[in-house]
């Protein structure tokens, strides 16, 4: 079932430049759909339309069968976890308060928030003694783990992730990718994941959508993607070399 559905969605800048052109795409329950593309392909824009950080002027975008325009925007955003490359942790809050912010403003009882924190911090592979630290006292990998935990805090069924592991060193990145994958096997969220990294797409994606200049070029499974005859897909695959280790995830 489609949890997120783009129907003929276009997006233009005020100066008329098209960022997205007639995008049609459905993200199914429990899958990780990877939006792959180079910078400027419109993938981040597509992501931000879903939680209405940008507004959809043309076409229809549905979340859980309802147009995002009909959703109360605050309810919509609390229904969707959001993790970005820069993380955006609140520098004046401790790790615990960062993670507990949405539960707090949703008026969860204190004990429930504390329990949720313990649960999440384990889930993302950190020990509970980071609770009282501030973001600047964490490493990049720890920060991103906290960012993911914060996105999951109120247990939203949908996750939007914009190159969340992009700024990490390759080793930490691989660790986090694998951990996220096993996390996802437990949690079964519906994930829309933006990246320009084909390796990451191959590792994480249930399906891969390639965007180029705001247009959907191809939408396929990982296996089909590598074998695609489409010249743009081929170019992308070649750019990453023939040794794309998509098999390291094992057969699904």
């Amino acid at each position, binding site marked *: 079932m489609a949890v997120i559905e783009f129907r003929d969605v276009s997006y233009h800048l005020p100066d008329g430049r098209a960022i997205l052109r007639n995008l049609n795409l459905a993200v199914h329950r429990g899958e990780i759909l990877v939006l792959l593309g180079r910078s400027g392909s419109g993938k981040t824009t597509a992501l931000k339309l879903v*939680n209405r*950080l940008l507004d959809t002027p043309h076409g229809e975008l549905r979340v859980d069968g309802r147009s995002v325009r009909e959703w109360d925007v*605050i*309810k*919509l*955003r*609390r229904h969707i*976890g*959001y993790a*970005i490359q*820069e*993380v*955006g*942790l*609140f*520098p*004046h809050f401790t790790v615990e308060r960062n993670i507990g*912010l*949405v539960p707090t*403003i949703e008026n969860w009882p204190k004990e429930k928030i504390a329990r949720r924190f313990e649960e999440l911090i384990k889930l993302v592979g950190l020990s509970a003694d980071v609770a009282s630290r*501030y*973001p*600047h*006292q964490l490493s990049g990998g720890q920060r991103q783990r906290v*960012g993911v935990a*914060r*996105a999951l805090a109120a247990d939203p069924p949908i996750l*939007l992730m914009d190159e969340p592991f992009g700024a990490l060193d390759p080793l930490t990145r691989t660790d986090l990718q694998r951990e996220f994958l096993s996390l996802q096997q437990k949690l079964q969220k519906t994930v829309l994941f933006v990246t320009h990294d084909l390796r990451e797409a191959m590792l994480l994606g249930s399906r891969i959508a390639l965007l180029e200049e705001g247009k959907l070029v191809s939408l396929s499974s990982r296996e089909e993607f590598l074998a695609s005859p489409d010249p743009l897909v081929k170019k992308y695959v070649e750019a990453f070399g023939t040794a794309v280790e998509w098999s390291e995830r094992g057969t699904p």
Partner: protein
Amino acid sequence: MNFWSFVSQNKFEIADLTLEHLWMVGAATLFAIAIGIPLGILITRKPGLRKPVIAAANIVQTIPSLALFGFLLPAPWIGDRAGRLAVLALTLYALLPLIRNTCTGIKGVDRAVVEAARGMGLTDWQLLYKVELPLAASVILAGVRVAVVISIGLATIAAAIGAGGLGELIFRGLAMVNNDVILAGAIPAALMALTADTLLGWLEKRLSPPRAA
């Protein structure tokens, strides 16, 4: 008669005038905070208002203080008492640093932090008081600090319209061509400015958000 004997003979008057001075500056600062910070926030929300608001505050700043005191004299109610008039004029002068620093402070909050906050479903109000204002606090306080120091200096001129304060001694000393009397007004005013600057500077440091290590 030297400086110290003048001070010791007139210590009660000097203390009175110092209090009067403090009162004018304090009241003006509070009014300026109450008006300037909300205005500064408003112009981050309505970018179209930014230029006209800053321009208006800028223009006020360019009016020579003596002239501003004069312009305000005919104002009803305000003009009845020199003290009120002085507070109004000082408030107007203090607005610019407050509006500008509030705006700069809020706009200076890391965009990723604001985006994450909005993305996770904070309302505009929650974004403001949980994220933007705490993170902008030290910059806003720097504005308060500038405003207070300017006001302490400017308030000496308020004596020209009979509002009292330490300026009274300065003007009296000028008329008498007596440096000791001038200093008896100028030194406490300078000390007041230095103290306020130090205290607010300390507070500003305490309110700075934790920095990247």
